[in-house]
Protein backbone atom coordinates (compact mmCIF):
# COMPACT_ATOMS: atom_id res chain seq x y z
CA UNK A 1 0.00 0.00 0.00
CA UNK A 2 1.68 3.10 -1.27
CA UNK A 3 1.06 5.89 -3.75
CA UNK A 4 3.77 7.99 -5.26
CA UNK A 5 4.62 10.41 -7.98
CA UNK A 6 7.92 11.12 -9.66
CA UNK A 7 8.13 14.33 -11.64
CA UNK A 8 10.31 16.74 -13.51
CA UNK A 9 10.00 20.49 -13.87
CA UNK A 10 10.45 21.22 -17.59
CA UNK A 11 11.40 24.86 -16.89
CA UNK A 12 14.21 24.18 -14.42
CA UNK A 13 15.15 20.52 -14.90
CA UNK A 14 14.54 19.88 -11.22
CA UNK A 15 13.58 16.29 -10.41
CA UNK A 16 11.49 15.09 -7.52
CA UNK A 17 9.58 12.40 -5.71
CA UNK A 18 6.45 12.53 -3.56
CA UNK A 19 5.39 9.43 -1.65
CA UNK A 20 3.01 8.34 1.06
CA UNK A 21 2.12 4.97 2.51
CA UNK A 22 0.75 2.92 5.36
CA UNK A 23 4.28 1.72 6.19
CA UNK A 24 6.44 3.72 8.58
CA UNK A 25 9.31 6.05 7.73
CA UNK A 26 8.98 5.70 3.96
CA UNK A 27 11.24 8.72 3.41
CA UNK A 28 14.11 6.58 4.68
CA UNK A 29 13.71 4.37 1.62
CA UNK A 30 13.92 7.10 -1.03
CA UNK A 31 17.55 7.34 -2.08
CA UNK A 32 16.91 7.21 -5.83
CA UNK A 33 17.36 10.86 -6.79
CA UNK A 34 20.37 12.63 -8.24
CA UNK A 35 20.59 16.12 -9.68
CA UNK A 36 20.95 16.21 -13.43
CA UNK A 37 20.74 12.40 -13.57
CA UNK A 38 17.28 11.12 -12.78
CA UNK A 39 14.87 9.69 -10.28
CA UNK A 40 14.08 6.06 -9.56
CA UNK A 41 11.68 4.59 -7.04
CA UNK A 42 10.96 0.92 -6.33
CA UNK A 43 8.00 0.08 -4.09
CA UNK A 44 5.35 -2.56 -3.31
CA UNK A 45 7.74 -5.35 -2.26
CA UNK A 46 10.70 -3.12 -3.03
CA UNK A 47 14.12 -4.31 -4.04
CA UNK A 48 16.13 -1.68 -2.25
CA UNK A 49 19.25 -2.24 -4.32
CA UNK A 50 17.34 -1.03 -7.40
CA UNK A 51 17.22 2.69 -6.68
CA UNK A 52 20.94 3.32 -5.98
CA UNK A 53 21.76 1.05 -8.94
CA UNK A 54 19.30 2.88 -11.20
CA UNK A 55 20.93 6.21 -10.41
CA UNK A 56 24.38 4.82 -11.19
CA UNK A 57 23.18 3.35 -14.49
CA UNK A 58 21.44 6.57 -15.58
CA UNK A 59 24.56 8.47 -14.55
CA UNK A 60 26.51 6.29 -16.95
CA UNK A 61 24.10 7.20 -19.74
CA UNK A 62 21.61 4.36 -19.83
CA UNK A 63 18.01 5.29 -20.68
CA UNK A 64 15.19 4.36 -18.25
CA UNK A 65 13.79 1.60 -20.50
CA UNK A 66 17.21 -0.06 -20.56
CA UNK A 67 17.62 0.38 -16.81
CA UNK A 68 14.29 -1.37 -16.31
CA UNK A 69 15.44 -4.32 -18.44
CA UNK A 70 18.58 -4.57 -16.34
CA UNK A 71 16.51 -4.49 -13.14
CA UNK A 72 14.40 -7.36 -14.48
CA UNK A 73 17.51 -9.38 -15.29
CA UNK A 74 19.05 -8.61 -11.89
CA UNK A 75 16.11 -9.66 -9.70
CA UNK A 76 14.41 -13.05 -9.39
CA UNK A 77 11.39 -11.32 -7.79
CA UNK A 78 10.91 -8.53 -10.34
CA UNK A 79 7.20 -9.48 -10.61
CA UNK A 80 6.65 -8.32 -7.04
CA UNK A 81 8.12 -4.85 -7.56
CA UNK A 82 6.57 -1.62 -8.68
CA UNK A 83 9.10 0.71 -10.26
CA UNK A 84 9.11 4.14 -11.91
CA UNK A 85 12.17 5.69 -13.52
CA UNK A 86 12.67 9.08 -15.14
CA UNK A 87 15.86 10.58 -16.48
CA UNK A 88 16.93 14.20 -16.78
CA UNK A 89 15.42 14.49 -20.25
CA UNK A 90 12.04 13.26 -19.01
CA UNK A 91 12.27 9.79 -20.54
CA UNK A 92 10.23 7.33 -18.53
CA UNK A 93 9.92 3.64 -17.75
CA UNK A 94 7.38 2.11 -15.38
CA UNK A 95 6.60 -1.41 -14.18
CA UNK A 96 3.85 -2.80 -11.97
CA UNK A 97 4.57 -6.47 -11.26
CA UNK A 98 1.74 -8.98 -11.25
CA UNK A 99 2.65 -10.02 -7.68
CA UNK A 100 1.91 -6.63 -6.12
CA UNK A 101 -1.18 -6.68 -3.91
CA UNK A 102 -4.54 -4.94 -4.04
CA UNK A 103 -5.38 -2.58 -6.88
CA UNK A 104 -2.03 -1.65 -8.40
CA UNK A 105 -1.02 0.38 -11.40
CA UNK A 106 0.88 3.26 -12.90
CA UNK A 107 -0.04 6.10 -15.18
CA UNK A 108 2.25 8.31 -17.23
CA UNK A 109 1.41 11.94 -17.95
CA UNK A 110 3.29 15.11 -18.85
CA UNK A 111 6.57 15.14 -16.88
CA UNK A 112 5.32 12.65 -14.30
CA UNK A 113 4.52 9.06 -13.41
CA UNK A 114 1.85 8.30 -10.81
CA UNK A 115 2.04 4.79 -9.38
CA UNK A 116 0.66 2.89 -6.46
CA UNK A 117 -0.46 -0.41 -5.00
CA UNK A 118 -3.05 -1.46 -2.45
CA UNK A 119 -5.20 1.44 -3.62
CA UNK A 120 -8.96 1.88 -3.72
CA UNK A 121 -8.77 2.08 -7.52
CA UNK A 122 -7.41 3.84 -10.61
CA UNK A 123 -9.04 7.10 -9.52
CA UNK A 124 -6.16 7.54 -7.05
CA UNK A 125 -3.67 7.77 -9.93
CA UNK A 126 -5.99 10.26 -11.65
CA UNK A 127 -6.05 12.28 -8.41
CA UNK A 128 -2.25 12.28 -8.23
CA UNK A 129 -1.90 13.44 -11.81
CA UNK A 130 -4.64 16.08 -11.52
CA UNK A 131 -2.84 17.48 -8.48
CA UNK A 132 0.52 17.47 -10.23
CA UNK A 133 -0.69 19.08 -13.42
CA UNK A 134 -3.03 21.65 -11.82
CA UNK A 135 -0.44 24.42 -11.56
CA UNK A 136 2.44 23.60 -13.91
CA UNK A 137 4.27 26.84 -13.19
CA UNK A 138 4.57 26.22 -9.46
CA UNK A 139 7.78 24.99 -7.83
CA UNK A 140 8.10 21.22 -8.20
CA UNK A 141 7.77 20.57 -4.45
CA UNK A 142 4.33 22.19 -4.43
CA UNK A 143 3.25 20.22 -7.49
CA UNK A 144 4.32 16.98 -5.78
CA UNK A 145 2.54 18.01 -2.58
CA UNK A 146 -0.65 18.79 -4.47
CA UNK A 147 -0.37 15.42 -6.21
CA UNK A 148 -0.24 13.55 -2.89
CA UNK A 149 -3.22 15.51 -1.65
CA UNK A 150 -5.04 14.67 -4.89
CA UNK A 151 -4.31 10.97 -4.40
CA UNK A 152 -5.47 11.10 -0.80
CA UNK A 153 -8.66 12.98 -1.69
CA UNK A 154 -9.42 10.42 -4.41
CA UNK A 155 -9.55 7.70 -1.74
CA UNK A 156 -5.94 6.67 -1.26
CA UNK A 157 -5.15 3.23 0.10
CA UNK A 158 -7.46 0.37 0.95
CA UNK A 159 -10.31 -1.46 -0.72
CA UNK A 160 -14.08 -1.36 -0.92
CA UNK A 161 -14.39 -2.40 2.73
CA UNK A 162 -11.74 -0.39 4.50
CA UNK A 163 -9.49 2.63 4.14
CA UNK A 164 -5.84 2.54 5.22
CA UNK A 165 -4.42 5.74 6.64
CA UNK A 166 -1.24 7.36 5.40
CA UNK A 167 1.22 6.85 8.25
CA UNK A 168 4.35 8.27 6.61
CA UNK A 169 5.14 10.58 3.71
CA UNK A 170 8.03 12.40 2.07
CA UNK A 171 8.94 14.87 -0.65
CA UNK A 172 12.42 15.20 -2.14
CA UNK A 173 13.52 17.56 -4.89
CA UNK A 174 16.99 17.84 -6.42
CA UNK A 175 18.16 20.78 -8.51
CA UNK A 176 21.83 21.11 -9.43
CA UNK A 177 23.66 20.31 -6.20
CA UNK A 178 24.88 17.10 -4.61
CA UNK A 179 22.15 17.26 -1.99
CA UNK A 180 18.40 17.84 -2.24
CA UNK A 181 16.90 21.32 -2.37
CA UNK A 182 13.86 20.07 -0.55
CA UNK A 183 13.80 17.02 1.71
CA UNK A 184 10.84 16.92 4.11
CA UNK A 185 9.45 13.92 5.93
CA UNK A 186 6.81 12.59 8.25
CA UNK A 187 7.76 9.19 9.66
CA UNK A 188 4.97 8.15 12.06
CA UNK A 189 1.66 10.00 11.99
CA UNK A 190 -2.07 9.33 11.68
CA UNK A 191 -2.61 11.77 8.81
CA UNK A 192 0.82 11.94 7.27
CA UNK A 193 -0.11 13.82 4.08
CA UNK A 194 -1.70 16.63 6.05
CA UNK A 195 1.30 16.74 8.37
CA UNK A 196 3.69 16.76 5.39
CA UNK A 197 1.91 19.86 4.06
CA UNK A 198 2.48 21.53 7.44
CA UNK A 199 6.18 20.60 7.45
CA UNK A 200 6.66 21.72 3.83
CA UNK A 201 4.99 25.11 4.41
CA UNK A 202 7.13 25.70 7.50
CA UNK A 203 10.30 24.60 5.71
CA UNK A 204 9.63 26.95 2.82
CA UNK A 205 9.63 29.87 5.26
CA UNK A 206 13.11 28.90 6.50
CA UNK A 207 14.61 27.62 3.26
CA UNK A 208 16.30 30.81 2.10
CA UNK A 209 17.42 31.75 5.61
CA UNK A 210 19.16 28.39 6.05
CA UNK A 211 20.77 28.57 2.62
CA UNK A 212 22.07 32.09 3.08
CA UNK A 213 23.31 31.40 6.61
CA UNK A 214 25.57 28.68 5.23
CA UNK A 215 26.78 30.75 2.30
CA UNK A 216 27.37 34.03 4.10
CA UNK A 217 27.82 33.25 7.77
CA UNK A 218 29.43 36.58 8.60
CA UNK A 219 26.19 38.38 7.72
CA UNK A 220 23.74 35.85 9.18
CA UNK A 221 21.17 36.95 11.73
CA UNK A 222 20.62 34.56 14.67
CA UNK A 223 17.79 32.08 14.20
CA UNK A 224 16.03 33.52 17.29
CA UNK A 225 15.74 36.83 15.51
CA UNK A 226 14.58 35.17 12.31
CA UNK A 227 11.91 33.20 14.23
CA UNK A 228 10.75 36.35 16.04
CA UNK A 229 10.43 38.15 12.69
CA UNK A 230 8.37 35.25 11.33
CA UNK A 231 6.03 35.48 14.32
CA UNK A 232 5.61 39.22 13.75
CA UNK A 233 4.79 38.64 10.08
CA UNK A 234 2.17 36.07 11.05
CA UNK A 235 0.56 38.26 13.68
Amino acid at each position, binding site marked *: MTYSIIGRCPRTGRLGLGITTF*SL*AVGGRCEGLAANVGVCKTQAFPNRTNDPLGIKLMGQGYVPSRVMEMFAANDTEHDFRQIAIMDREGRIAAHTGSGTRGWSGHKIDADCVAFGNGLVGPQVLDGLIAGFTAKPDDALEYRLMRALEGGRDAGGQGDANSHRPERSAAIKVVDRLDYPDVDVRVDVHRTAVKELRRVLEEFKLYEEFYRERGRNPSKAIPQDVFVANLKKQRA
Partner: protein
Amino acid sequence: MTYTILGRCQRTGRVGIGIATFSITVGRYCWGVKSNVGVTVSQAFANERNNALALRLLTQGFTARAVLQQLMDNDPYAEYRQIGVIDRTGMAVAHTGPKTRGWSGHVVGENYVAFGNGLMGPEIADAIAKGFLAEPESDLEHRLLMGIEAGRDAGGQGTRERPKTERSAALRVYSTDTFADIDLRVDLHETAVDELRRVWSYFKPYEPYYRHRERNPRGAMGQEEFMKTLQAAE
Protein backbone atom coordinates in the same frame (compact mmCIF):
# COMPACT_ATOMS: atom_id res chain seq x y z
CA MET B 1 22.43 25.44 17.95
CA THR B 2 22.81 21.75 17.33
CA TYR B 3 24.22 18.68 19.03
CA THR B 4 25.36 15.61 17.27
CA ILE B 5 27.00 12.25 17.72
CA LEU B 6 28.87 10.56 14.89
CA GLY B 7 29.72 6.96 15.62
CA ARG B 8 31.24 3.82 14.23
CA CYS B 9 30.66 0.35 15.60
CA GLN B 10 33.99 -1.34 16.26
CA ARG B 11 32.45 -4.82 15.93
CA THR B 12 30.51 -4.39 12.70
CA GLY B 13 31.98 -1.35 10.95
CA ARG B 14 28.52 0.25 10.80
CA VAL B 15 28.58 4.05 10.76
CA GLY B 16 25.92 6.53 11.74
CA ILE B 17 24.63 9.90 12.88
CA GLY B 18 22.40 11.05 15.71
CA ILE B 19 21.49 14.73 15.65
CA ALA B 20 19.09 17.18 17.30
CA THR B 21 18.68 20.92 16.83
CA PHE B 22 16.49 24.00 17.08
CA SER B 23 16.45 24.31 13.28
CA ILE B 24 13.71 22.41 11.47
CA THR B 25 14.17 19.42 9.10
CA VAL B 26 17.77 18.78 10.21
CA GLY B 27 17.72 15.30 8.65
CA ARG B 28 18.18 17.09 5.35
CA TYR B 29 21.79 17.80 6.33
CA CYS B 30 22.58 14.22 7.29
CA TRP B 31 23.44 12.51 4.04
CA GLY B 32 27.19 12.39 4.74
CA VAL B 33 27.25 8.72 5.62
CA LYS B 34 28.11 5.74 3.46
CA SER B 35 28.62 2.03 3.99
CA ASN B 36 32.25 1.02 4.38
CA VAL B 37 33.36 4.61 3.77
CA GLY B 38 32.67 6.75 6.81
CA VAL B 39 30.52 9.48 8.22
CA THR B 40 30.63 13.28 8.34
CA VAL B 41 28.41 16.17 9.38
CA SER B 42 28.99 19.89 8.82
CA GLN B 43 26.96 22.10 11.13
CA ALA B 44 26.82 25.53 12.86
CA PHE B 45 26.80 27.81 9.79
CA ALA B 46 26.80 24.64 7.75
CA ASN B 47 28.65 24.43 4.47
CA GLU B 48 26.24 22.00 2.84
CA ARG B 49 28.70 21.14 0.08
CA ASN B 50 31.19 19.63 2.51
CA ASN B 51 29.48 16.26 2.82
CA ALA B 52 29.75 15.37 -0.86
CA LEU B 53 33.44 16.28 -1.04
CA ALA B 54 34.18 14.50 2.24
CA LEU B 55 32.50 11.26 1.15
CA ARG B 56 34.34 11.31 -2.17
CA LEU B 57 37.68 11.86 -0.44
CA LEU B 58 36.97 9.15 2.14
CA THR B 59 35.99 6.79 -0.70
CA GLN B 60 39.32 7.50 -2.38
CA GLY B 61 41.07 6.43 0.79
CA PHE B 62 42.05 9.66 2.51
CA THR B 63 42.09 9.54 6.29
CA ALA B 64 39.56 11.46 8.34
CA ARG B 65 42.31 13.91 9.34
CA ALA B 66 43.32 14.62 5.73
CA VAL B 67 39.67 15.03 4.70
CA LEU B 68 38.99 17.54 7.46
CA GLN B 69 42.02 19.56 6.40
CA GLN B 70 40.81 19.54 2.79
CA LEU B 71 37.37 20.77 3.81
CA MET B 72 38.86 23.66 5.76
CA ASP B 73 41.31 24.60 3.01
CA ASN B 74 38.39 24.66 0.57
CA ASP B 75 36.25 27.11 2.54
CA PRO B 76 36.80 30.85 3.13
CA TYR B 77 34.38 30.65 6.09
CA ALA B 78 35.94 27.67 7.85
CA GLU B 79 35.99 29.59 11.11
CA TYR B 80 32.17 29.59 11.11
CA ARG B 81 31.85 25.86 10.59
CA GLN B 82 31.72 22.88 12.87
CA ILE B 83 32.70 19.60 11.22
CA GLY B 84 33.10 16.00 12.34
CA VAL B 85 34.57 13.15 10.29
CA ILE B 86 35.11 9.44 10.98
CA ASP B 87 36.76 7.18 8.43
CA ARG B 88 36.44 3.43 7.97
CA THR B 89 39.32 2.70 10.33
CA GLY B 90 37.59 4.54 13.16
CA MET B 91 39.85 7.59 13.04
CA ALA B 92 37.68 10.45 14.31
CA VAL B 93 38.42 14.17 14.02
CA ALA B 94 36.52 17.40 14.50
CA HIS B 95 36.80 21.13 13.94
CA THR B 96 34.93 23.80 15.87
CA GLY B 97 35.48 27.21 14.29
CA PRO B 98 35.99 30.15 16.68
CA LYS B 99 33.08 32.05 15.11
CA THR B 100 30.39 29.47 15.80
CA ARG B 101 27.90 30.91 18.30
CA GLY B 102 27.21 30.15 21.94
CA TRP B 103 29.17 27.47 23.74
CA SER B 104 30.65 25.29 21.01
CA GLY B 105 32.97 22.36 21.14
CA HIS B 106 33.67 18.71 20.52
CA VAL B 107 34.76 15.58 22.34
CA VAL B 108 36.54 13.06 20.13
CA GLY B 109 37.66 9.49 20.68
CA GLU B 110 38.28 6.43 18.56
CA ASN B 111 35.05 5.72 16.61
CA TYR B 112 33.11 8.77 17.78
CA VAL B 113 32.70 12.53 17.65
CA ALA B 114 30.33 14.27 20.10
CA PHE B 115 29.95 17.91 19.13
CA GLY B 116 27.66 20.87 19.24
CA ASN B 117 27.20 24.63 19.21
CA GLY B 118 24.86 27.03 20.96
CA LEU B 119 24.89 24.64 23.92
CA MET B 120 24.54 25.17 27.67
CA GLY B 121 28.19 24.26 28.15
CA PRO B 122 30.90 21.62 27.81
CA GLU B 123 28.95 19.23 30.00
CA ILE B 124 26.58 18.66 27.07
CA ALA B 125 29.30 17.34 24.77
CA ASP B 126 30.68 15.25 27.64
CA ALA B 127 27.23 13.80 28.32
CA ILE B 128 26.72 12.90 24.64
CA ALA B 129 30.04 11.05 24.56
CA LYS B 130 29.23 9.29 27.82
CA GLY B 131 25.80 8.26 26.53
CA PHE B 132 27.35 6.87 23.37
CA LEU B 133 30.05 4.97 25.24
CA ALA B 134 27.75 3.55 27.93
CA GLU B 135 26.84 0.32 26.11
CA PRO B 136 29.61 -0.45 23.62
CA GLU B 137 28.17 -3.88 22.73
CA SER B 138 24.73 -2.55 21.76
CA ASP B 139 23.55 -1.77 18.23
CA LEU B 140 24.90 1.48 16.87
CA GLU B 141 21.46 3.09 16.45
CA HIS B 142 20.75 2.48 20.12
CA ARG B 143 24.11 3.98 21.14
CA LEU B 144 23.58 7.06 18.96
CA LEU B 145 20.13 7.62 20.41
CA MET B 146 21.53 7.21 23.94
CA GLY B 147 24.09 9.87 23.09
CA ILE B 148 21.49 12.35 21.90
CA GLU B 149 19.20 11.70 24.84
CA ALA B 150 22.08 12.24 27.26
CA GLY B 151 22.77 15.57 25.57
CA ARG B 152 19.14 16.57 26.00
CA ASP B 153 19.10 15.47 29.64
CA ALA B 154 22.26 17.45 30.41
CA GLY B 155 20.52 20.64 29.25
CA GLY B 156 20.93 20.69 25.49
CA GLN B 157 20.82 23.99 23.66
CA GLY B 158 20.65 27.61 24.73
CA THR B 159 21.70 29.20 27.99
CA ARG B 160 20.48 28.66 31.55
CA GLU B 161 18.38 31.82 31.16
CA ARG B 162 17.10 30.94 27.70
CA PRO B 163 17.03 27.21 26.97
CA LYS B 164 16.16 26.18 23.42
CA THR B 165 14.02 23.23 22.51
CA GLU B 166 14.89 20.57 19.95
CA ARG B 167 12.57 21.08 16.96
CA SER B 168 14.04 18.42 14.68
CA ALA B 169 16.16 15.30 15.01
CA ALA B 170 17.42 12.39 12.94
CA LEU B 171 19.01 8.97 13.25
CA ARG B 172 20.83 7.31 10.35
CA VAL B 173 22.94 4.15 10.22
CA TYR B 174 24.65 2.46 7.28
CA SER B 175 26.00 -1.06 7.30
CA THR B 176 27.10 -2.80 4.09
CA ASP B 177 24.26 -1.96 1.69
CA THR B 178 24.03 0.87 -0.85
CA PHE B 179 21.13 2.25 1.20
CA ALA B 180 20.60 3.06 4.86
CA ASP B 181 19.96 0.39 7.48
CA ILE B 182 18.15 2.87 9.70
CA ASP B 183 16.94 6.27 8.55
CA LEU B 184 14.46 7.99 10.85
CA ARG B 185 13.49 11.62 11.19
CA VAL B 186 11.48 14.12 13.10
CA ASP B 187 11.26 17.31 11.05
CA LEU B 188 9.02 19.69 13.00
CA HIS B 189 8.12 19.03 16.63
CA GLU B 190 8.21 20.70 20.05
CA THR B 191 10.25 17.93 21.69
CA ALA B 192 11.97 16.28 18.77
CA VAL B 193 14.31 14.01 20.74
CA ASP B 194 11.39 12.51 22.67
CA GLU B 195 9.56 12.10 19.38
CA LEU B 196 12.59 10.46 17.74
CA ARG B 197 12.63 7.90 20.56
CA ARG B 198 8.91 7.28 19.95
CA VAL B 199 9.47 6.91 16.19
CA TRP B 200 12.35 4.51 16.82
CA SER B 201 10.38 2.44 19.35
CA TYR B 202 7.50 2.26 16.91
CA PHE B 203 9.66 1.46 13.91
CA LYS B 204 11.98 -1.05 15.55
CA PRO B 205 9.72 -4.13 15.39
CA TYR B 206 8.78 -3.31 11.77
CA GLU B 207 12.38 -3.07 10.60
CA PRO B 208 13.06 -6.84 10.26
CA TYR B 209 9.57 -7.34 8.82
CA TYR B 210 10.15 -4.76 6.07
CA ARG B 211 13.55 -6.22 5.32
CA HIS B 212 12.23 -9.75 5.05
CA ARG B 213 9.23 -8.74 2.94
CA GLU B 214 11.47 -6.96 0.45
CA ARG B 215 13.80 -9.90 0.02
CA ASN B 216 11.15 -12.62 0.13
CA PRO B 217 7.95 -11.21 -1.35
CA ARG B 218 6.49 -14.63 -2.21
CA GLY B 219 4.01 -15.47 0.51
CA ALA B 220 5.03 -12.44 2.60
CA MET B 221 2.69 -11.71 5.46
CA GLY B 222 0.46 -8.67 4.89
CA GLN B 223 1.33 -5.65 7.01
CA GLU B 224 -1.96 -5.73 8.91
CA GLU B 225 -1.48 -9.40 9.68
CA PHE B 226 2.02 -8.55 10.90
CA MET B 227 0.60 -5.81 13.11
CA LYS B 228 -1.73 -8.35 14.72
CA THR B 229 1.28 -10.46 15.69
CA LEU B 230 2.78 -7.35 17.30
CA GLN B 231 -0.39 -6.76 19.29
CA ALA B 232 -0.51 -10.42 20.29
CA ALA B 233 3.06 -10.23 21.54
CA GLU B 234 2.30 -7.25 23.77
